[in-house]
């Protein structure tokens, strides 16, 4: 890290900086959505952008998610790089048809003539005491859709670098922001570039690999610290790009330890976590000392605020999963 390009900031501020730097660098970048103008977004991720860049570059739209995504498709067809905000995970569902039928398919439909360089930012997940429709982990819907790139950062640095990469991408990117980490702080070096499609080892370890993304990386790191006190050396892989999946990094990690636990907040059935579990089981079978476990949300609607601590995967649940991995000691 270089001192003159590094600052400590929250993830929300890092995202804001990435948007601002992209708006400066590329006149075709536009930011729009609900309350992203004067208010600066309900999480303040777009704070100050309308004032600094003007109403033509950052603006509020009518309250209509399909309209936001659908018009972003048209803008991307016509030379712009729209970065649109869905206010909350569950409020993106009205735009589902536009995302699945057009955002994901336009490039393929036109054999690359009309690629859609656009970013759909979606705050997702629980842990903030949000009421119903504000805490869904909706990433599997997008990850399941061919043609979409799905990314989720876990630190302010990743938030900055991955959002810059997403905006620069020739293809549409669904950018899943872990809202419980918006206020987490970390160093951000704006000179660090990230590659979409690359996972990263967030903590080295020899005994077991925890595989997580977005909000669950923090849980994995905390569990690794606790397990270390019990003498287990725990490796943590931050997936970062949910699709296209980085098999190489993840499998190499698991083969080095022989044990794996996948962690995610989303309901586990037919999920990104179950896909990772299946891939690891298939590709690392000969290296595994125990079945691959997963620690996920239950297959129930997200819990109300007073019950969410029972729903969310936590350190204890991860430790229990680690303990079940056929240890000889």
């Amino acid at each position, binding site marked *: 890290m270089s001192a003159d390009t590094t600052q400590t900031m929250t993830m929300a501020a890092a995202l804001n900086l990435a948007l601002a730097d992209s708006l400066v660098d590329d006149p075709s970048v536009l930011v729009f959505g609900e309350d992203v103008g004067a208010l600066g977004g309900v999480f303040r991720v777009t704070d100050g952008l309308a004032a600094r860049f003007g109403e033509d570059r950052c603006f509020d739209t*009518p309250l209509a998610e399909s309209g936001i995504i659908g018009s972003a498709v048209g803008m991307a067809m016509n030379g712009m790089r729209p970065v649109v905000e869905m206010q909350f995970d569950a409020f993106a569902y009205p735009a589902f*048809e536009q995302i699945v039928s057009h955002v994901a398919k336009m490039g*393929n439909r*036109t054999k690359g003539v009309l690629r859609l360089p656009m970013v759909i930012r979606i705050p997702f997940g629980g842990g903030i005491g949000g009421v119903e429709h504000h805490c869904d982990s909706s990433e599997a819907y997008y990850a399941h859709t061919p043609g979409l790139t799905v990314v989720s950062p876990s630190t302010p640095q990743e938030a900055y670098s991955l959002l810059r990469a997403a905006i620069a991408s020739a293809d549409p990117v669904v950018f899943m922001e872990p809202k419980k980490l918006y206020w987490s702080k970390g160093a951000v070096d704006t000179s660090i570039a990230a590659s979409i499609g690359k996972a990263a080892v967030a903590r080295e370890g020899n005994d077991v690999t925890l595989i997580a993304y977005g909000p669950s990386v923090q849980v994995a790191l905390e569990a690794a610290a606790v397990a270390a006190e019990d003498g287990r050396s725990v490796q943590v892989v931050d997936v970062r790009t949910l699709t296209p999946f980085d098999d190489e990094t993840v499998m190499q990690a698991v083969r080095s330890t022989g044990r794996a636990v996948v962690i995610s907040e989303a309901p586990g059935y037919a999920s990104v976590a179950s896909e990772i579990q299946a891939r690891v089981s298939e590709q690392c079978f000969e290296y595994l000392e125990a079945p691959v476990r997963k620690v996920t949300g239950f297959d129930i609607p997200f819990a109300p605020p007073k019950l969410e601590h029972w729903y969310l995967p936590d350190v204890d649940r991860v430790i229990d999963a680690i303990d079940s991995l056929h240890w000889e000691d």
Partner: protein
Amino acid sequence: MSAADAAQLPDERPVQLVDEQGVSVTHEKYERPPLETLLAGYSALVQGRRVNEQCNALVRQGRLAVYPSSHGQEACQIAAATVLGEHDWLFPTYRDSVAVMARGVTPEDAMVLLRGDWHSGYDSREHCVAPQATPLATQMLHAVGFAHAAKLRGEETVVLAMCGDGATSEGDFHEAMNFAAVFGLPVVFFVQNNEFAISVPLSRQTAAHSLAHKAIGYGMSGQRVDGNDFAAVFSVLSEAVARARAGSGPSLIEAHTYRMQAHTNADDDTRYREREEVQSWICRDPLTRLQSHLREAGVLDDEAEERFAAEAELVAAELREAMNREVSVQPSELFEHVFAQRPATLEQQWELLQDEIVRTEASA
């Protein structure tokens, strides 16, 4: 209601400039386009009708998977395509193949979707025509965004978005109208009200006085036009395009027309409409009306008729020949265009399929 609001309301009767017998009708606001425009339009209508017939035949011969015909709606198709300038964009639906061809796309390229080679067969940028949309009303929003980008850059592009009466019930139709009006965008929304959404009649889509009346709810002007009167559709759309280009915002134009044939070859329209009703629209046919008008005006004679028919026949023959050629479809393309750069995961899947293809060919 204020005078400004009232000015946005459509006429009580659809605008007509040439009646069913081919006689001129005067209108206080709209003028009949020049005869040369109508003559060129007529030639294109003849071609459009011939292409519709040819495509129906190609479905019966198994050369096309399906064809949603615009038979009876050719005046709307040709007018929508020809009111636009070279750099304006058209956003068509699956029933608008004739409009797509009228923008210069070859019939062969236009039929790629319906033949089943690929999901779209023409270069959208070359022709300024978006891929034909199958999901209803979704393309209206793309048109809005496209126009928004043009406006932000200070370009003069006008965008014309087409849909049918059924699509006006979709949420995206509403959102597109609303976005376009709020941002004052140069979009012309053109609804071909052909009375049916497959089997469901207009009365089940709306309780509004007319579809064009919906415009005032968004704060834009609406107009109704006789969709089988080429002169009227051309004139009303031209005015809307000119207004959009002048920065006066979007408008909603509803053309009253009729789907003379079933939804597609897979549909049986005897289950939901009376033959008498279909028959009653024959005397309102867009071709015969324009033909009578031009003959009466003395600009269309037998020789010109024969020439137009021969040109249309040539187009049909070329289309027939093209569709009868076996095209080679490439499985590699399934993986080639999904992303700008093919990820390793898809590379592996393509290798799997490639192995399968090699083994299949070896055993054949």
